């Protein structure tokens, strides 16, 4: 860590700026490609209905005390009886999401399209960066950093003696990949499709199962203790009126 490295201005002109520009352009291109390939999904009748049932059952649970006990019991029976209750899921019918995905070719197709528009350009740009710019020190950030940032900023340079504030070209690529989101939302509008980080999270959480939430809602509904809130209101109304009359 002797004296400062001097970076050639040609590196700025031929590595740093082109890399950023290419990243932005690829992002924009990908947005339009995915817009072209997007098929508008028609939701399944069953799924829409299940969503609505869940909302209604949740309302029932939250506001149960506002309706008479008889009405509450009738509704609870309607939702959770074992024969044809809306929330009751017969045992064998609980499809697992994996099987559902394969049974519905549209869904698999959609996934593939999404992945195509995400993974292919990413691998290509990564290969491109790797091939042309491997081992470059592309920039220097104007403040010192601790050793821990070495893995983040100097990916591709295996030297422990270079000061951490130098950024390798491959790291610059990664910084762009994740840092350009704000810029994209400026150029392409708020909800653009280039949100990589979010999509990665979605991949992890894939496999939402509506039947499971139906079952959970049923269990919740079964343990609700109904206590009619209205008798209390009589006293409250009395006190309200007393105040009003005395005024």
């Amino acid at each position, binding site marked *: 860590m002797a004296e400062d490295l001097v970076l050639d201005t040609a590196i700025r002109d031929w590595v740093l700026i082109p890399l950023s520009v290419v990243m932005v352009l690829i992002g924009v291109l990908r947005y339009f490609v995915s817009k072209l390939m997007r098929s508008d999904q028609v939701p399944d009748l069953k799924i829409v209905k299940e969503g609505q049932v869940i909302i209604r059952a949740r309302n029932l649970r939250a506001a149960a005390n506002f309706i008479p006990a008889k009405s509450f019991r009738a509704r609870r029976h309607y939702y959770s009886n074992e024969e044809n209750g809306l929330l009751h899921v017969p045992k064998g019918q609980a499809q697992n999401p994996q099987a559902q995905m394969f049974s519905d070719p549209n869904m698999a197709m959609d996934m593939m399209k999404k992945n195509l528009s995400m993974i292919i350009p990413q691998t290509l740009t990564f290969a491109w960066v790797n091939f042309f710019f491997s081992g470059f020190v592309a920039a220097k950030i104007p403040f010192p950093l601790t050793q821990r940032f070495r893995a983040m900023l100097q990916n591709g340079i295996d030297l422990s003696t270079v000061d951490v504030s130098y950024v390798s070209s491959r790291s610059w690529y990664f910084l762009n990949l994740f840092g350009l989101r704000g810029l994209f939302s400026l150029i392409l509008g708020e909800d653009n499709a280039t949100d990589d980080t979010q999509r990665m999270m979605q991949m992890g959480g894939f496999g939402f199962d509506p039947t499971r939430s139906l079952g959970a809602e049923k269990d919740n509904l079964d343990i609700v203790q109904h206590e009619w809130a209205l008798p209390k209101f*009589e006293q409250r*109304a009395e006190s309200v*009126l*007393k105040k009003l*009359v005395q005024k």
Partner: protein
Amino acid sequence: MVSKTEDEQLIRLENQVENGGGGTWEYLSLVRKLKLRRSDKVFKYGSAILADPKKRSALGPEEWTLYEQVAIAAMDCQHLDLAKGYIKVLQGKFRESKRVGRLEAMLLEAKGLWSEAEKAYSSLLEDNQFDQVIHKRRVAMAKAQGNLAGAIEWLNKYLETFMADHDAWRELAEIYVSLQMYKQAAFCYEELLLTQPTIPLYHLAYADVLYTLGGLENLHAAKKYYAATIDLTGGKNTRALFGCGSAIAQLTRGRNRDDKDNSELQSLSAAALEKAYKQQSPTKVSALSSALRSLKVSS
């Protein structure tokens, strides 16, 4: 639901627009966002914007949204020719669009060509069975023809899928009440109470239905819901006060007044009524007291 700040903003903008202070587009956008029915004003100001090519093109892509909004408003105001013109413009721009197709069907409906409109709506629904607007248009159409049973049928079909739509429940409840099917109406009002338990109007309507149904249990419940309305409105709702008084009068009829808590609520509501009448319409106090006497409320 329109929040208070939005309501204030709307009134401010409306005044501003009416006095020629500009902000027309903001006003129209707000009306659209809040889904209000201000057809006369939307038509008047919106068509003025559309008639001026410079103003129109300044809106950019929003221009088409405005065309749609003004077309609907024009149909509501029975300016069918103008509405037809606007829809034609949209047709030229968006061929094969479902949304424009919906407008065309609505134009048929506005002309009173029921069977044609019905046909158009059902063909649109075949393409997309989740178009809630079309489902609701069908209900409205049945209602416009005076076919309340049909309206109930369509609404029930709609609610089978979209059962969390409280506006539809409310519509259904009101139709049931108008057909004197009170048991069904009571169910709908219960559903409304579940979705929005803090709105006093639902408590009041439910209490009315229960009171009309009659019977000891229902009257007791009606009294409680009138009390809840009184509590939620701070005793400002005259109908609830009357309802509370008469429900208790019904309950105590033919019995000695041994329920002490009942009579207290009754006399209190009578007192509140008297006070409100004295403040707001002193000429009708005598009518009130005779009415209360007939209920054996005032001692």
